[in-house]
């Protein structure tokens, strides 16, 4: 009887899927997330149809940035070669590069090629003076607002400061529940939103030497501002919101404004989902005082090559990412996905402008955008910000104390 059990067990172990048969063209695997799943699959079809020597297969992961990061980490630790090219969130590039997992790209992409891209997106792909990732597409947050409410309040000029928006809100005398809707939960979304509060208060997260300085006057003032609006001008639940929840408040017509990623434009204006469709405008994030330059937080994905793969694979991978990040492909991607491209020229392309008219206003926003600090220790920094700033936002600690704690933590690495 025991024998039978063992036999059955072995039989089950042998139910293995057929291995992928090696074919003539070089087989590449490109890993990306479902966030841009459908448009990317279309792009790959195009690439495979026009390139006989290379066949690119897709490996799609859930959209959650942590899932993707952790899956890559597991494969990289194992020295895995099952992935050749990966689309990585910009904040993780330094980390992967410092771990020695990414191939250098400087030879293939010289300075004159890089000049075509929005500078911030290139900087995000560099670590220790070398290029490890090419920008695929970028992203920036925008400040969405209700055009109809502005009209109702009799305001003709779109406000540029926090105070200006609060004034509009007060003029509306309860016609809308909240002036602001942003992200304040302990999450990466909050880190982005918080960075913007800091920058638009005139503050910086890193000092002149590139070391985190989290307890400076401007940072404290910005955190105070972000916290003080919660429960008064922003929903009490802001401390539990990531993007989706804050967007929901705006979509249901409960907030005058909403800070979120530019691509949300389409959803806000889709009548099936949004009760404010057609009444939505987008502008720069507000600043603390008139005349300051507003900065939005940049995001996006860059493509990089697994260092562990063979030279033959690497050559094919380079050919693929050259194609993927070319102006022409970026334009196609923009038309397919409404993801903001990394190549500057695409923003002024007539065909693109026809499809996405707000890119005229969006280009300056993205050009003034800032990246989150690029450092192998970004994860630790983000974690310290998330936990400590969240304490300030919930009122558990005064902003100054919370930020002093954060500073102590980040000084340790």
């Amino acid at each position, binding site marked *: 009887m*025991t024998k039978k059990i*063992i036999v059955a067990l072995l039989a089950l172990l042998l139910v293995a899927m057929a291995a992928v048969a090696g074919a003539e063209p070089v087989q590449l695997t490109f890993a990306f997330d479902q966030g841009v799943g459908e448009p990317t699959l279309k792009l790959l079809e195009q690439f495979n149809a026009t390139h006989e020597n290379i066949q690119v297969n897709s490996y799609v992961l859930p959209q959650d940035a942590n899932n993707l990061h*952790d899956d890559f980490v597991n494969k990289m630790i194992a020295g895995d070669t099952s992935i050749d090219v990966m689309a990585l969130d910009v904040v993780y590039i330094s980390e992967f590069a410092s*771990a020695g997992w990414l191939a250098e790209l400087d030879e293939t992409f010289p300075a004159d090629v890089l000049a075509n891209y929005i500078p911030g997106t290139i900087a995000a792909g560099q670590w220790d003076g070398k290029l490890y990732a090419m920008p695929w597409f970028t992203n920036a947050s925008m400040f969405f607002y209700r055009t109809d409410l502005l009209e109702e309040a009799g305001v003709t000029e779109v406000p540029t400061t926090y105070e200006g928006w609060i004034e509009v809100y007060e003029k509306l005398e309860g016609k809308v529940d909240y002036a602001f809707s942003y992200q304040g939960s*302990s999450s990466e979304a909050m880190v982005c939103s918080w960075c913007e509060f800091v920058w638009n208060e005139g503050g910086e997260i890193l000092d002149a030497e590139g070391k985190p300085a989290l307890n400076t006057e401007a940072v404290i003032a910005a955190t105070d501002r972000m916290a003080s609006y919660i429960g008064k001008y922003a929903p009490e639940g802001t401390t*539990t919101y990531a993007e989706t*929840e804050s967007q929901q*408040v705006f979509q249901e017509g409960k907030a005058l404004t909403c800070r979120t990623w530019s691509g949300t434009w389409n959803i806000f204006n889709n009548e099936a989902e949004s009760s404010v469709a057609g009444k939505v405008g987008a502008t720069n994030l507000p600043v603390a005082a008139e005349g300051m330059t507003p900065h939005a937080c940049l995001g996006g994905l860059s493509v990089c090559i697994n260092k562990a793969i063979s030279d033959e694979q690497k050559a094919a991978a380079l050919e693929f990412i050259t194609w993927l990040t070319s102006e022409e492909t970026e334009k196609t991607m923009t038309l397919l996905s409404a993801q903001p491209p990394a190549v500057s020229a695409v923003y002024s392309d007539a065909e693109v402008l026809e499809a996405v008219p707000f890119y005229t206003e969006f280009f300056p926003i993205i050009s003034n955008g800032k990246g989150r600090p690029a450092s192998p*220790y970004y*994860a630790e920094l983000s974690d310290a910000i998330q936990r400590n700033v969240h304490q300030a936002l919930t009122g558990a600690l005064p902003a100054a104390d919370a930020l002093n704690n954060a500073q102590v933590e980040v000084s340790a690495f």
Partner: protein
Amino acid sequence: MGHGRKREGVAVPQVYSDFLICECDMHRGRKGLPDDDIIKWRNAAMKKSRGETSQLLRREARAAWIMMAPALIVLGVVAVYPVLRTFWISLHEMNLKRPQSGFPFIGLANYAKILTDVRAQQDILFTFKFTIATVLLETLLGFATALVINQSFRGRGIARAAILIPWAIPTSVSSMMWKFIYNDQYGLFNDILMKIGLIDGYKAWLTSDPFLCLVITDVWKTFPYMALLILAGLQMLPLELYESAMLDGAGVIKRFRYITLPLVKRTVLVAMLFRTLDAFRVFDLISVMTSGSVGTESIAIYAQKQMMSFLNFGYGSALAVLIFAVVLSISLIYMKFIGGDMLPSD
């Protein structure tokens, strides 16, 4: 049934062997087993053969190892390596972001670091709090539920299926669902509490009462596990015991106290043990609902952060081993209560 023997009035072992005999009698004439065999076994059981030869014992031991072999092989192949590897890594300075360090062996330095890491200590404390609260509530609720659905009543099948639903929904989905339920704008929790007049305004529950939210969600999600296992334990109780107790005039409470409780005690403890192991390693639920903010970071979340986010595998592994050590101690305490009578004497 070591404890049963001492309980006043109810002679468990006696009833058990009576029960065995009556079981044999009940099955006489049923298909599958010839009558003669049953009678032979019955007689043999009554005699309770003792004093086997050592050869017989050896044969028994050999058969036992054969029966355990598949399980031990699978566990040995798949589970032992990860465990040993984690131990080994925990003795190294291994931050993947610093490959130039060469990942040197540093002995117990990672463990020494835990002693000065306030965050790890707070996390352990929180995890204990969470484990105790959820396991106790789940056990009480699960036991009560099992007692109810063990009764025979119309609609019992539906009730049983309904009660298992929370356990059946994938954790990732149910945590997300509960996050929506606690939302301050459109959450059901606010809607319902408001309608029944318990609160007079919507609240952001996940920051105002995060512990309560997590405990409610976890209890909701896992009490069915307890209920189902305790129900299985109840089903194993011989009906004859209750009948004779009833003949003796024992009431509901007495029957529960002296029959049900001692006999399902071990099942409940084993179920509690596994719930404790799970609760102490809680990860998904907290990561989706609060991501560890407002003082709700569990030690498993911290270990995961050290490993996967900070790529500090050395320290992360030490935290994993710490979880292992704590859970092992808890298990040893449980073992004391479960007692040796689960296993036959050597």
